């Protein structure tokens, strides 16, 4: 029976993806960029939509929610995965609403009146069956994939508006988005980039090599020198791992100190973050917020006897509060941190915040 074959093929796929997530990152953060992770998740969700057995939108949402829960549990720090699950859920809701003939607008409107009268869009409303729902959902997911493919380019395109000639730009660690952003600007403008190496993983070295290959004047500094150099810097442009619901960041270790130094010198701090990094998570969810990896980089295993006498921790992320951030540049334009809540409600359905 081909159906059964497909089912096992897809569960195998999911298991492999989960295993990959669990092993994800041997210490230096994710092996792949979060952009790739987002794409992979979406591919997988598209496949589930196409191959899993479901008859109504409600079933499909339940399946995707279940898988989504497992995926996020496998690697809680990889918020992109959860974000993509929420996006897909939102797509299903929209397509369902469209199939029912009711306009999206009315479904989405959150008025005080509606909140008080009905219990929101409850599950039994998704039980109706539509012939074209599957095709429509897949079509919409394909659109989402196209959007994901274009994010980095969209962000990079805005580079010329933000970077001017002879400016000194500081960045920290390595971000693919920031790299593309700077390289795009370098085609027209001449400027100087200072890269903080971002110990202990020193992703900054990689970044600097990439930039200097593109012909950008690049300097690598130690993290300790960030404050000293900051006075000469015109702009700080960094990437992030996640944009939190309050407009804060969960970014690479060291980002907080850069942000504080920038605030001290009143240097603008610009964040390059594609929309898929926007997460409905708040920074107070302590347990999953941090990610601690092997202390090897801090104090190598070869150090010997001392290791039994000390506790070494090696966190990967920093929290940067929203008030230190000047501007977010996403694939749909620039936004202030205070506007994040609005973007959030456009991207995700409030019922999906908790998977």
């Amino acid at each position, binding site marked *: 029976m081909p159906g059964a074959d497909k089912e096992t093929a897809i*569960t195998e796929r999911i298991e492999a*993806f989960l295993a990959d997530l669990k092993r994800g990152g041997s210490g230096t953060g994710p092996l792949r960029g979060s952009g790739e992770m987002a794409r992979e998740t979406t591919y997988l969700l598209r496949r589930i939509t196409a191959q899993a057995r479901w008859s109504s939108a409600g079933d499909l949402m339940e399946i995707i929610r279940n898988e989504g829960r497992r995926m996020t549990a496998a690697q809680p720090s990889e918020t992109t995965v959860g974000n993509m699950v929420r996006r897909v859920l939102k797509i299903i809701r929209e397509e369902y609403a469209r199939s029912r003939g009711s306009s999206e607008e009315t479904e989405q409107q959150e008025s005080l009146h509606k909140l008080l009268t009905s219990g929101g869009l409850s599950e039994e409303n998704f039980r109706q069956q539509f012939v074209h729902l599957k095709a429509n959902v897949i079509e919409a997911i394909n659109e989402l994939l196209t959007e994901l493919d274009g994010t980095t380019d969209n962000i990079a395109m805005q580079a010329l508006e933000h970077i001017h000639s002879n400016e000194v730009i500081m960045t920290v660690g390595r971000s693919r988005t920031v790299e593309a952003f700077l390289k795009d600007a370098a085609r027209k403008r001449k400027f100087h980039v200072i890269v903080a190496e971002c110990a202990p993983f020193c992703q900054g070295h990689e970044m600097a090599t990439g930039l200097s290959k593109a012909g950008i004047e690049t300097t690598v500094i130690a993290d300790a020198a960030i404050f000293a150099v900051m006075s000469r810097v015109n702009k700080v442009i960094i990437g992030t791992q996640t944009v939190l619901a309050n407009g804060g960041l969960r970014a690479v270790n060291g980002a907080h100190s850069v942000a504080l130094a920038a605030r001290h010198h009143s240097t603008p701090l610009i964040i390059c973050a594609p929309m898929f990094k926007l997460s409905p998570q708040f920074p107070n969810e302590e347990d999953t917020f941090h990610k601690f990896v092997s202390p090897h980089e801090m104090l190598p*295993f070869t150090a010997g006897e001392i290791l039994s006498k000390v506790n070494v921790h090696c966190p990967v992320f920093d929290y940067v509060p929203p008030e230190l951030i000047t501007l977010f540049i996403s694939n749909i334009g620039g936004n202030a941190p205070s506007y994040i809540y609005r973007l959030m409600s456009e991207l995700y359905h409030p019922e999906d915040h908790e998977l």
Partner: protein
Amino acid sequence: MSSRGGKQKKGNVTSEQEEEEQPLQAVLVADSFNRRFFPISKDQPRALLPLGNVAMIDYTLEFLTSTGVQETFVFCCWMSNKIKDHLLKSKWCRPTSPNVVHIITSDLYRSLGDVLRDVDAKNLVRNDFILVYGDVVSNIDVSQALQEHRHRRKVDKNISVMTMVFKESSPGHKSRCEEDDVIVAMDSKSKRVLHYQKTQGLKKLQFPMNIFQHGSDEFEVRHDLLDCHISICSPQVAELFTDNFDYQTRSDFVRGILVNEEILGNQIHLYVTQDGYGARVSNLQMYDSVSSDMVRRWVYPLTPEANFTDQQGQGCTHSRHNVYRGAEVSLGQGSQMEENVLIGRDTSIGANCRISNSVIGNNCTIGDNVVLDRAYMWNNVHISSNVEIHQSVVCDGAVVKEAVRLNKQCVLAYNVVIGPNLSLPEGTVVSMHHPEEEEEDDDDEFLSDDQEVGHSKDKTRQKAFNPAEVGPEGKGYIWKASMDDTEDEELAQCLWGLVLNPDPESDSESEASEESQDHSRSVSPEIDDVNAFQLEVLGTLQRGLEENIVCDNLVLEINSLKYAYNITLKEVMQILTRVVLEYPFQQQGTQLTTLQYTGSLLPLLKTWSPVFKNYIKRPQDHLDCLSAVEELFLEQDTHQTAMVKVLMKMYQLEILEEEAILKWFSTGATNDKSRQLRKNQGLQKFIKWLEEAEDESSEEGE
């Protein structure tokens, strides 16, 4: 979009097209073949003992899977049913698992050697495979080592048979196991192992001379290596185990390969890694340190909260100071989890407890005012109030009553009850099994955990708990802290390894044995072997003479003897020379005159010259042979005059070359006696003649 488990592996092998199709295989030995964990492992095989609330074998399988292994053979012996049940329930046997696990059980395995012989007999491996024990915890990425291994095998035509994975860690590191402490001499460039020795707390170590003369520019002698017990083996390894039925363990194998290196041409290589973590839980002390390393996240991403076994309800959360909590954990008022604490699900802890550096299993109850430090509690343990536990292991179902104090390195095995009001001294082991059962079992094999226990005796002794030892309500028998009745050469057979009696001498210093020309014995593995070998060679030659056997066959026979007794090529030659030269004495008594001696010896030399020529090829061999001759004549000083004749004859028979003789004469003298020997008139004349012959160029040569 390749998010499959085998992705890493595929990426690495692309350079070697022909091997790409073969799935990577692994052999996992889920038996320890020793009794380190003894009273505990009587009820549960070692591979299933929980480490951080996860069975050890799961760590090993996860490690294998994450390195891209697609097919694993699990060999179990002791309590194989339990292991089988466990594996069948785990995620490894789900149809979606990227790593196919085959379980092979047999009660006949007594050692690693047996397992590998079985691998060979069943023809299980087709390609290079990874060999690990079921108690290895690691996150090392061996793909690099695998690549190096394959590259070597490609370049050198299957000469390298094994690559051992070692981790750099300086002496004094707590996860270095004293028993596995090794000294390794390796070639810096090719990473080839030249010498491998367990230090076993020795202060002086000897290195064979040949590793210094090995001819490579650089070599390293390293003591900063931690044996991860992960080896990448080629299929030949299994065959070699079959060929050499006396190999029991991997160190036997390594020693055998190194000794026979010149003949078989097999080599062993080393892969030293700085990243990653790898250790084998070989005794309780290692259990302690691996557990605490795991809780301190050294084995990331194999951390407790990752729930890599994918069991329902096993998940836990990780918060500051490495405190992990499972689901439904309740903590009483005033209790503190200080640091590095892992608590399994459904465990409840009373008020005012202090817990640090501990692992507590599922479903435990802990009373009030309890102090736990470095305590390892498994599942369903019940601890009453006012208990203090330091660095101890409490197994499943054990009950500790009120006001009990467990001092360091205590072990409470399954279902033991202790207390109340008792303090167990350091190193106490309590088990529901009576120690005498074990001693009776000791008579047969001491190698393995796997003795069936006579349960009938259990009942007769059921009443005999000693309240003074285990408390008024206690159940269990005290085991002697150290079982000195096992005649092991290793220092301690006890659960906690060597730590019980910290060895002041353990900081071993290495020292190369200074040897010169007369290094006849120091290289030998065991003197007995050498003597036995000498007798055998003598017998062979005798028979050869009586039955007129062709010299080629004699060579064959000597070669096979060489393997049987583990003798180096150099020794073969020295012994052969000795045997031949002593042959007349053997046959006709020692009262021979010099004339008679030479008379009977010279024809013999002629007969056996092909045998000599077979072994004496390189210039070094000539010198070795000459030194053997010299040594013999130093002993038989009445016959020193015969020496010239012997040398002359050997020279004429083209066994020895004149350059070698001249070199030996000019440089060989090391002590008074041998200088005396060189003053011998006949010898001087002979040398002079040789020198002249050389001057007058080649015609005179013969």
